[in-house]
């Protein structure tokens, strides 16, 4: 069941310049939410809601965490919300990541602001998770302590080498595969990154799920604006990121360009 309501923000932190982490008390949502789902967040003064991934869920505390970057006017408005303010969200939305049975190994790959949803899914695997995340530079790095606290192998890359490994997540991913092949790969980030990871997984015969982005209106599957091209049984067709996704089997996604 989708829920819509105004819920209190119980904590707010700045994780990096222009990147905020808010924890929202919404027990009914937290109870049902799964890693990889998202929320449609209302920004005062703006007509459309902003889709933001659920970064983490604390079912005991009844909270979810949203981590977002200020990209435009709407997210800028959201960044003005502080502790104790109410935030208007619809959640949990979308399908979320598929979680394999206990003991299986996962690699979770996040690029930039695609990193937050990796917190929730890495948690499902704990020490069996390897998290590879990449950022422009040291000052954009976020959530590394969260991954460590989960017990995951935590590999950090930066484009300019100012923190962690100098290079792209795809390079680190290939290096990991040389060591051990996981049972599943999860990825969220820029399209070109997802495309490359998909290719690598295909070449290595690894099941991979990617989380896509598209501009949205309803967020629930009714308006059909959030289209993406997919393929199944050789048949190309339009899927909708909000309802059929945001998580797709990487093989079903048609990456053009």
């Amino acid at each position, binding site marked *: 069941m*989708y829920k*819509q309501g105004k819920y209190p923000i119980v904590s707010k932190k700045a994780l990096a310049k222009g990147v905020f982490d808010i924890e929202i008390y919404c027990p009914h949502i937290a109870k049902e939410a799964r890693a990889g789902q998202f929320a449609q967040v209302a920004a005062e003064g703006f*007509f459309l809601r902003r889709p933001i991934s659920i970064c983490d869920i604390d079912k005991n505390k009844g909270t979810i965490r949203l981590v977002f970057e200020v990209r435009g006017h709407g997210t800028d408005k959201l960044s003005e919300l502080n502790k104790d303010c109410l935030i208007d969200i*619809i959640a949990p939305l979308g399908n979320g990541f598929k979680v394999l049975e206990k003991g299986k190994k996962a690699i979770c790959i996040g690029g930039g602001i695609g990193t937050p949803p990796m917190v929730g899914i890495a948690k499902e695997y704990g020490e069996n998770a390897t998290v590879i995340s990449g950022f422009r530079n040291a000052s954009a790095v976020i959530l590394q302590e969260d991954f460590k606290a989960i017990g995951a192998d935590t590999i950090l890359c930066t484009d300019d080498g100012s923190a962690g490994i100098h290079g792209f997540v795809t390079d680190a991913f290939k290096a990991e595969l040389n060591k051990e092949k996981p049972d599943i790969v999860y990825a969220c980030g820029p399209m070109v990154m997802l495309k490359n990871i998909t290719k690598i997984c295909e070449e290595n015969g690894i099941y991979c799920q990617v989380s896509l982005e598209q501009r949205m209106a309803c967020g629930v*599957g*009714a*308006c059909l604006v*959030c289209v993406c091209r997919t393929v199944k049984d050789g048949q190309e067709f339009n899927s909708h990121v909000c309802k059929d996704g945001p998580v797709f089997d990487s093989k079903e996604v048609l990456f053009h360009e």
Partner: protein
Amino acid sequence: MNRINVNFCGVEFKNPVIPASGTFGYGREYEQFYPLSKLGGISVKGTTLHRREGNPGPRVAETPSGMLNSVGLQNGGVDKFINYELPNLVTKDTRIIANIAGSTVEECAELAEKLNGTAVDMIELNISCPNVKQGGAAFGTDCNVAGAVTRAVKDVTEKPLMVKLSPNVTSITDIARSVEANGADAVSLINTLLGMRIDIKTRRPILKNNVGGLSGPAVFPVAVRMVWQVANAVKIPVMGMGGIATWEDAIEMMLAGAGAVQVGAAIFADPYAPVKIAEGMQRFCEENGIANISEIVGTVKPW
């Protein structure tokens, strides 16, 4: 006591609030928020003869107090609607308006014919979609064509026929009169205004279709004006829409001449909007001693 039930064009609606075509799918998603029986009716997603994939994405762009869409009538085709969606919808205790769109006059008629004998309560013939190349707005911007397609559908349908008009015209009253003269039982308006947004960083239109249809509160004053003009130009009932977001807006639209209203884009901001609007109208009637909301239709007194 229910003070907001209306008879629109011979069909009884328990309230005059109807989610607008294309903004509510077939109700499946919003049923997770509230029972569909709370709605006067549902105008379902535009249906074409065959399955349509619609336009490529992005299909939505935000605008001040509104949005552009360029969905382009993605839908599963009329047979899927009849066989898969309709059986579900009929169990929901609400009126069903089938919104149909064809690329040719013949297609429109064929669509209407297919809906004969089904549980659909009313046909809404969309001659105003700005997002498809054939049919759509091309039908809705010329009096003769609009009249001809109306006549063709009227000749074959057994359902009350409502024709949905485009606001992108010099004189919407001329089009309304033409579809009335050709047998329309009602008109609905407005469909979306054609608009465009450009990403100044990439210097490309935000919509892959370059242009799209503007809806939401931004268009409300245009919609009120057109509903008022059309209600004064034709004798058939008018279903008003365009930017309605609150019960006050709905009352305003009915004062302008709408016998019932549709609510579209506002649902994206607040899924409960249609329900809240109906509740607000009921309260309005109670507080103002109005026995039935129909009493106020078209009662605006111009200066």
